[in-house]
């Protein structure tokens, strides 16, 4: 082929790619919340819609998957709890649960909170298992990650915030807690500025928890969808092996990220609880 027809072929492909790449709406469609449960190619289940005082509280995909996570956790963990009534030694699946529970208690709660850590272990276990189950449910076929919704992660972070402040204020008293925020031996003219900075810091830390979990979960899904979507954008079968290999690698990485993010959320919550309860710098 001469140079002109080659240039024509290349520019045609580029134009075609540029035109096809504009409709990325399908990526957002798979990531964002929706009012229907979709099982392509079998069918679609329409979920009920509720409006209360003008606020939309209809049941969406993420709500359904959160409830599914709750049902799974209640069934599994109540079985585990009942098994401890008969003997202290677990059998079977309870072994795995014991490993996870002891991990949260001994590696996360006890080193960071120190004395009086037992009161906070139930909350930390709940957060850990709930985030882990939600993350894993999103990786299954037809699954949807509830924690990839900023509202869900913001609610989890708000609950962490309440536990942190509540724990700190119950231990140190409401006024003593704010006094303990300031470092020791501070000149009096620095107190207003330091108080504002420390109170702002109280709010930014749970905010970072929410954003970190949300962004990690969403980013992984976007990368997988973009890699698999390359096949449809370039409209050729030769890209498929490469695309699927990369997508598989990112999928395995995402399983790791799901575990790590649940651990990090619980660890940082526990760290902040420890810093609020034992305020000696």
């Amino acid at each position, binding site marked *: 082929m001469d140079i002109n027809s080659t240039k024509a072929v290349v520019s045609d492909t580029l134009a075609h790619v540029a035109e096809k790449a504009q409709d990325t709406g399908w990526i957002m469609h798979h990531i964002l919340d929706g009012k229907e449960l979709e099982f392509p190619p079998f069918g679609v289940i329409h979920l009920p819609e509720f409006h209360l005082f003008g606020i939309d509280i209809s049941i969406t995909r993420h709500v359904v998957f959160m409830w599914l996570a709750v049902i799974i956790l209640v069934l599994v963990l109540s079985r585990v709890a009942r098994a401890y009534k008969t003997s202290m030694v677990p059998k079977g699946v309870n072994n795995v649960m014991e490993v996870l529970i002891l991990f949260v208690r001994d590696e996360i709660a006890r080193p960071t909170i120190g004395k009086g850590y037992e009161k906070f272990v139930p909350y930390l276990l709940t957060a850990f298992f709930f985030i882990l189950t939600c993350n894993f449910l999103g990786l299954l076929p037809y699954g949807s990650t509830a924690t990839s919704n900023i509202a869900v992660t913001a609610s989890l972070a708000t609950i962490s915030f309440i536990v942190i402040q509540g724990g700190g204020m119950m231990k140190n008293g409401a006024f003593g807690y704010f006094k303990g925020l300031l470092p020791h031996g501070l000149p009096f003219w620095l107190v207003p500025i330091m108080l504002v900075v420390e109170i702002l810091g109280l709010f930014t830390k749970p905010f970072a928890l929410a954003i970190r979990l949300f962004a990690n979960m969403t980013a992984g899904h976007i990368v997988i969808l973009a890699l698999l979507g390359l096949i449809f954008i370039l409209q050729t079968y030769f890209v498929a092996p490469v695309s699927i290999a990369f997508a598989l690698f990112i999928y395995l990485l995402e399983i790791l990220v799901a575990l790590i993010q649940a651990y*990090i959320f619980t660890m940082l919550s526990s760290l902040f609880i420890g810093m609020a309860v034992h305020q000696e710098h």
Partner: protein
Amino acid sequence: MDFAYLAAGFGAALTVIGGAFGIGKLASSAMDASGRQPEAAGDIRTSMIIAAALIEGISLFALVICILLALK
């Protein structure tokens, strides 16, 4: 003249540079420390993963802003 996509691309690129540089430095000190004292390798690995997740959290802040830019 729509510069939003260009800005999103530049933002994501700079964020990746910063994040990769930080995590690379972290991993290199973790390797050095594990080499010096192999018994502490488990503790060092745990701390390394925690620090890596925190650094990645920061780069994902910037990613969220880039996505917002690209979607407008």
